[in-house]
């Protein structure tokens, strides 16, 4: 199959996925597209929103339309790491000997729904660190690879909710995107009511196989990026580093730490997915700009002053987008 055909197929598959998800999820277009984008880029997603906005439903729907193994972990304060990763249990063998046998946890699946992840203690939250980054689990001194593709789609309630624990910075940084799920509009809410309070039940089909998804992920990585687009992404990330000369004023004033290199990776990969979904063969500056908020917002660590003044991550990212020029001044007429 030629590259052009692969691109065409990518777009068709994406459109099918979008359509299937759309059967269940009403509105939340940006959230859905970004979630799909992260999946196609091979990244994990953190969905944040108050209870009842369809975060879990979205992930469950994805689990249904993707022909992948799916696990749901409900994070609670008493959840332990072993409950996620698995544990060695003493088992009786056929010959009557008792041996330790590793009992795989729910993390051993392609698609993990980490529901209300911030309701577990940081210790338990951190159990996912290795799995998310290395796609492997170390237990009992043995490293066990997770089968590709591997995604964690986590949901969390806002930090100010009762019974929540903030995710550690290292954990947050491992999420490709952090998406904020907002309230639906009146039309969307009406449609939600129509779909959920009547007898009709949406039937979802599996649109993408595991192999097809991995091929799509490969295709995404082949999309070319012009040097100045990469440069723009780099400048955006550098502008969030408060201790450097490239930092924008708000970053200098309100940030303790800026984005890690993973932020730049997320910008470029997210841009590539968006370019393909838009029918382009190259990443544009607009792609970078569009994915900047979900890719960077959770990677910025605010200082006390920002918290005191109620400055949000999104305000800072928007400020960065305003301050950093797309084209260096020398190029403009």
């Amino acid at each position, binding site marked *: 199959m*030629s590259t052009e055909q692969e691109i065409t197929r990518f777009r068709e598959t994406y459109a099918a996925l979008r359509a299937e998800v759309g059967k269940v999820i009403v509105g939340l277009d940006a959230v859905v597209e970004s979630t799909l984008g992260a999946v196609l880029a091979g990244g994990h997603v953190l969905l944040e929103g108050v209870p009842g906005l369809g975060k879990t439903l979205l992930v469950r729907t994805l689990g249904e339309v993707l022909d992948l193994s799916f696990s749901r972990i409900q994070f609670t304060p008493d959840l332990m790491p072993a409950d996620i990763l698995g544990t060695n249990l003493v088992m009786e063998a056929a010959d009557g000997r008792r041996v330790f046998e590793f009992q795989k946890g729910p993390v051993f699946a392609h698609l993990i729904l980490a529901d209300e992840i911030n309701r577990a203690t940081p210790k338990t939250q951190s159990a996912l660190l290795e799995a998310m980054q290395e796609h492997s689990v170390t237990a009992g001194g043995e490293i066990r690879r997770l089968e590709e593709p591997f995604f964690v789609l986590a949901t969390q309630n806002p930090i100010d909710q009762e019974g929540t624990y903030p995710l550690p910075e290292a954990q947050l940084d491992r999420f490709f995107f952090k998406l904020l799920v907002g309230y639906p509009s009146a039309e969307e809410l009406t449609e939600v009511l129509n779909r959920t309070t009547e007898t009709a039940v949406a039937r979802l089909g599996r649109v993408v196989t595991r192999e097809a998804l991995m091929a799509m992920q490969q295709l995404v990585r082949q999309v070319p990026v012009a040097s100045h687009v990469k440069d723009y992404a780099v400048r955006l990330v550098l502008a969030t580093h408060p201790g450097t000369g490239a930092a924008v004023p708000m970053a200098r004033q309100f940030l303790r730490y800026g984005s890690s290199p993973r932020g730049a990776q997320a910008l470029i990969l997210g841009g590539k997915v968006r370019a393909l979904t838009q029918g382009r063969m190259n990443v544009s*500056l607009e792609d970078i700009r569009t994915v900047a908020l979900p890719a960077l917002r959770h990677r910025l660590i605010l200082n006390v002053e920002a918290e005191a003044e109620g400055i949000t991550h999104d305000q800072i990212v928007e400020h960065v987008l305003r301050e950093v020029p797309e084209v260096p001044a020398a190029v403009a007429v």
Partner: protein
Amino acid sequence: MSEWEQIQRAVAGVGRRRRWQRAWGGMWKGLWVGVCLWVGLVAVYKVYPVSIQVLPLGGLLVVLGALAGGVLGGWRGTPPIETARWLDQERRLQERVSTALELGGQAPGEWSALVVADAARHMGRLDFRRMLPLRVPVLSRWVLLALVLGVGLGFVPEYRTRDWVQRQRDQESVQEAGKNLADVSRRLLEKRAPALEPTRQAVRAVGQLGEELTRNPLSRSEALREVARLTEKVQAQNREMARNPALRSMDRAARSADGNRSGTAEALQRQIESLQKSLGRADVPPDALEKLRRELEQARQMASNLSNPDSRAAEAARDNLAKALSSLARESQDLGAALSGLEEAIAALEAGQIQQVLQDLEAAAKDLDKLRDMAQALQQLQQEAARMGKDLGEQLQNGQAEAAIATLQKMVNQLKAGAMSEEALRAMREEVSKAIRPAGPYGKVPEHLKDAVSRMQDGQTAEAAQALADAAKELEDLLQQLADAESLQGALGALKRAQACIGNGKAWSLCQGTGFKPGGKPGRGVGTWAEEEGWIETPPQTGLWDNSGVERPDMDPRGVTDRGEGEVPEGMSPSSVKGQFQPGSQMPSITLRGVSLKGQSTVSVREAVQAAQSQAESALSQDQVPRAYQNSVKGYFDDLERDP
């Protein structure tokens, strides 16, 4: 053309067009800056006394600003990749062109082909001129406004302080005086380089001072000091030369010449003889010829009145005319003037042909006019010959150095020829010995002449010739000195004129001279009839200068001119305060308009007082002082005479 080449060409075209556009925009920006600077300079010029050169400089800045802006704007070309990025942004191509350009330059691949094709498809056909038009920018309105403002400022009068204006005028007059001094010096040197080194240096110093004043105009007082210093120097040199009595007599002779000298003594004699031959007599007084002319005119009048020959009165008139004509014929014969027309007129009168008489008298009058002119010319030549002197002694006596040189040269030639008779040699010796006394003031000339006389007495003609040649050489040297003195005088005149110009702050042309006015000397008018002043001595006042007998009815006083004794108006009675010079007390002073020359005075108080008294007397005698104050002024200056 491949899609890749198509993109490259489009990007290059856009790059060129953007460069032009930048140059165009830069030109307008430069023009704006230049115009602003120009307006600023005009404003500065209107307020501060800066040189007027700032205005053309400002104009130049406008042009240079536009040029520099254009050059700077279009100087730097844009790399294709930057142009591609700009194109992406301008045409909303989502970085297609820049990515394609970047990938196209790398190794060919499926993705790069796809990207290039995608970019080419989306770029389409670009119309550079429409996309990047060279429009007149909004800035042009501001440029126009600033230009109008600048032109408007041009009509605003400049603000200058009175002191500055005065300084400027002084500077201009100093500069002009300097330029003219340099010109005079150059002309003097071009006309004739002075033979004496000090004179040459003095003339050159005048030129150098002129150039210095032109290049670096000093303040009025400084310039006057410089000019005065040089004038002193040149004057001292001039006085030094004036001590030579030979030069004085030579100068006097040169001044008495009318400028139409008829050449050497020999040429003069030849002309005199030729005229005498034409006239038939050695001397015909022009006055007698003039009288004859008047009588002839009367006779002609009488002849013209003989219109009616039949009347008895006409008969008597004819007789009178016949007598008059006979008398005229006799007088003309006495004067040696043969007037054939007169004889013919007498014959025609006898024949009763009045018209013929008139014609003959006309012809006779013309002949008489010619004779009169010739007689006048002869008289002038004779006067000139008399001034020049008929022999060596007279020539030296009259200061005719050139004539004397010619005479000496003639003698030398005769002596060298060696064919002189004893009598001729004696005559020459006598002439030379007679010239020894008049040659006294001429340096070594009398010694040479004495030597020549003694040699001639001894019959040593060759040595005598050499002595005479030496005398001629000495005279030539003196002539050179005279010419040098004239150059020096020219330089001195220029310096004095420069002093007057700078001192009065006037233009060079307005410092000509004092003109002919009461108490003044004859100056320059239409036609120079005298030098302003002699270089060696003041020309002697002769009767020719006395114009007291000239009647000028148009200048006669009208009405009652005698107003009696002057009366002082009420409240303005003059009071004379006697000056008192006491040690330690304040010295009464008056402020005079003039130039302040600092330094040690070289004039004694007595001389200064005498000069002031002389000027006061002159002013009083010329009625320059109001009558009411004349007595007071006279009293004041008389007191001064007694005070020292």
